[in-house]
């Protein structure tokens, strides 16, 4: 059927990129492909996850990992196994983490959640939205509001984009972060208005400076008082506004609806999603993205069908994709732990990922994390290797209650199978040779299994997923 062109998806027609993938004899739903897929739609998977996905087959695995559209209960407490629970103790813990207002505790709570949740795709998208609607505790200085925003993002993560934007536009943490806690008609604050168009919905170049000023006027009277949104009609500028070609817009809500009607929104979003799930090293053209954008618009910006189309596409499952993304610090850490089914000190990890550039609840600026090559520099490379070294040697890093380091040092079948799991689940198959030719699987008298894993962490391919 398809022959030569098959090897290079960038030569495919746009429709072909996003055709649903189907398992076949040449392209089986095997361990390699499952591991790749789990690294992207989830935070990686263990040998057990891979076995489960094998058993379920592709379609049911999609349901298992990417199902759960309804986000109503998405923020509920999880027990240590990741089951949603009415369990009072877990709920109590979630409440106390919220009330603690401590960024580090909240980050630890979130990391634990990523590790154990039964809805990893939602959690991954929540992380995506945290970068998209970037808001930092450093400026907001109210951990409760930060936590509530996180729950908001989780609830809407794979639901309706318009619903999410309307909510985020009134989210106290967001408005405080963008200096819009007060917004008087005499001096409209342009910060939120600008970011709504530039970073949240349209992208640079699809609005004018005049639009920013007009939009800012639509949001006059929007205020945060005592941690809550309220509309102050006395401060709302009642004069007519001209926004993106419309002259009939009055309120902030109407303005948001009008922005969401712009044809750029769907391209802006699907480009970011394709970068996020597939590869951010390619300049995707509008033509390539057109089928996705069209669908997203047809679905009235309801996101789940398009997201699912991306992560079940022929492109996503193509070997071209394997190893073509640089891991974020969270992907690195979670992928490592998930591959061997280990638990760890989440606060310690929260601190470590922050130091290598991904402080949860503390994105670097309103643009969020740039991702891709920007994760990498000398400091973060050394930091990432040191992070894995710290994780492996930390006695709190455990599998079934046993310290990872002692399991690795046991020189038993268990130790070998852990190394093998790391390799199979964590390191893209295409890169195995590169890694093993420098740091072979077999430990030697000179280099114990613990040292070997740490050495792997210094290798360039360890950064790829």
């Amino acid at each position, binding site marked *: 059927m398809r022959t030569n062109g098959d090897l290079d998806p960038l030569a495919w027609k746009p429709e072909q990129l996003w055709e649903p993938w189907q398992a076949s004899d040449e392209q089986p739903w095997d361990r390699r492909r499952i591991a790749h897929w789990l690294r992207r739609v989830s935070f990686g998977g263990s040998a057990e996850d891979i076995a489960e996905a094998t058993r379920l087959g592709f379609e049911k695995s999609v349901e298992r990992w990417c199902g759960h559209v309804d986000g109503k209960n998405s923020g509920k407490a999880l027990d240590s196994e990741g089951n949603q629970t009415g369990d009072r103790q877990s709920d109590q813990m979630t409440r106390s983490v919220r009330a603690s207002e401590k960024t580090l505790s909240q980050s630890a709570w979130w990391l634990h959640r990523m590790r154990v949740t039964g809805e990893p795709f939602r959690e991954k998208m929540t992380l995506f939205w945290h970068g998209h609607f970037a808001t930092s505790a450093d400026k907001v200085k109210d951990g409760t509001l930060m936590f509530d925003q996180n729950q908001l993002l989780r609830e809407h993560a794979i639901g309706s984009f318009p619903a999410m934007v309307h909510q985020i536009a009134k989210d106290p943490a967001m408005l405080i972060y963008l200096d819009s806690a*007060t917004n008087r008609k005499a001096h409209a604050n342009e910060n939120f208005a600008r970011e709504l168009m530039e970073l949240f919905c349209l992208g*640079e170049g699809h609005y004018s*400076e005049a639009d920013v000023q007009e939009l800012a006027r639509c949001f006059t009277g929007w205020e945060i008082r005592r941690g809550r949104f309220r509309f102050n009609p006395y401060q709302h500028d009642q004069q007519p506004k001209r926004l993106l070609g419309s002259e009939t817009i009055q309120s902030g809500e109407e303005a948001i609806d009008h922005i969401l009607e712009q044809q750029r929104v769907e391209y802006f979003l699907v480009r970011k999603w394709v970068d996020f799930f597939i590869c951010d090293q390619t300049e995707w053209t509008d033509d390539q993205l057109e089928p996705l954008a069209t669908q997203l618009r047809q679905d009235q910006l309801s996101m789940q069908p398009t997201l699912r189309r991306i992560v079940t596409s022929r492109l996503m499952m193509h070997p071209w994709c394997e190893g073509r993304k640089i891991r974020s610090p969270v992907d690195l850490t979670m992928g490592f732990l998930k591959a061997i089914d280990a638990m760890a000190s989440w606060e310690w990890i929260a601190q470590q990922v922050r130091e290598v550039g991904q402080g949860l609840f503390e994105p*670097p600026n309103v643009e969020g994390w740039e991702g891709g090559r920007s994760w990498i520099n*000398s400091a973060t490379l*050394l930091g990432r290797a040191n992070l894995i070294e710290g994780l492996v040697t930390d006695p709190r890093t455990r599998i079934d209650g046993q310290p990872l380091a002692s399991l690795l040092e046991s020189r038993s079948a268990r130790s070998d199978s852990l190394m093998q799991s790391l390799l199979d689940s964590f390191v893209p198959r295409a890169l195995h040779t590169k890694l093993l030719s420098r740091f072979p699987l077999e430990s030697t008298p000179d280099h114990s299994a613990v040292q070997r894993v740490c050495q792997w962490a210094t290798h360039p391919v360890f950064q790829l997923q």
Partner: protein
Amino acid sequence: MPHRIALHKHGSIKLNRRDWHVRSLLGAAAIGIQGTMPLWLRAAADAGAKQDEKVLVVVQLTGGNDGLNTVVPFREDAYYRARPKLALPADRLLKLDDQFGLHPAMTGLRDLVDKGRFSIVHGVGYPTPNRSHFESMDVWHSCQQKSRREREGWIGRWAASLGMKASGEDSPAIHFGQEVQPLALAHRRLAIPSIDSIERFRLRVDLPTASQEEASNSETAGEEDLVGFLEASTQTALRASARMSEAFARDTDVNDFPSHPFGQKLKAIARLIAVGATTRVYYVTLDGFDTHSQQPAAHEGLLRQWSEGVSALVRQMEAIGQADRVLVMSFSEFGRRVAENASEGTDHGAAAPMFFAGASLRQLHLGQTPSLEALDDGDLKYQVDFRSVYAGVLEGWLGTESPMVLGGEYSPTELFATS
């Protein structure tokens, strides 16, 4: 591709096992390196001639510094009219002459004025200013105003243009800071190190010697390839880590710096200069200038840190007789709107001053001050293209022809006193 060789030249040095034992090299405060110095470190230590070359320290004031409240035109009524709450009264200023005064927090920099070691380039910007932080910062970093995903910065291009002449050299540029590396330093074929802290910049993993050698010799794929990029970056990281360990294992006389993080970054730079590092450009940022609300206290704190840090660096360089070869250039992605907003802050604006400290500067005021009356949509109009200022630095200080680096011809601003 001559510039690619730059990276791989290092890779091609044959190191024997004893020369290159990474753990001991990077071990706590270890510089002994089991007796033998690696080739490139030794070469660096011997490279006496290189150490006379001029050094540029770039300070990025991130967020959009309010130029008008940094250098205040206290004769202008328009300034006081536009800023009923934020204007600084003339009697609080550190006067420069009968027209301008510095913000009162800038005592350190004010002291440099009389020594001819401080310059202001007024009214710097670029045509059709962009008021988005990121877009405007990208313009300042890449010197380009068109393409969206610009991947190279002016310092990256400058560094790549050098090639790497001797294998013993330090990286031509280093970024100090925890933030993502600024685009200014990016280049497709050259990885410039970012260093966040000396302690964290030490690898705790025991690497086998043989594999290090292999790593050095490994065939690197095309520079656009991700694996190739990561291999080059890993090499740079290991080398820079070793160099830092060396610089901080030795005693130097440059210790008197403010304790805030910005001051400590400048201290690290001073130490590297003092131990004879051959790095030509250092890059640091000071973030927080996006003062949309409650500006006075925040701005004052930032200007104080900036002024304390930069003036300490110049003083320490004077103390070790190096001040004439160290130039500090400070810039921000834009200035702020002339009129204050309702939150006791200022919104994104356009033209603003740039600042130089150290070296032997031609005169205090350069460039041209924009009118406070004839505004462009509420903002100051630029009088000097920032690329002309860069051209002045590239040609007059770094000794490089500027058009290739800047991607166009810009007439260089004359910054330096002719001796």
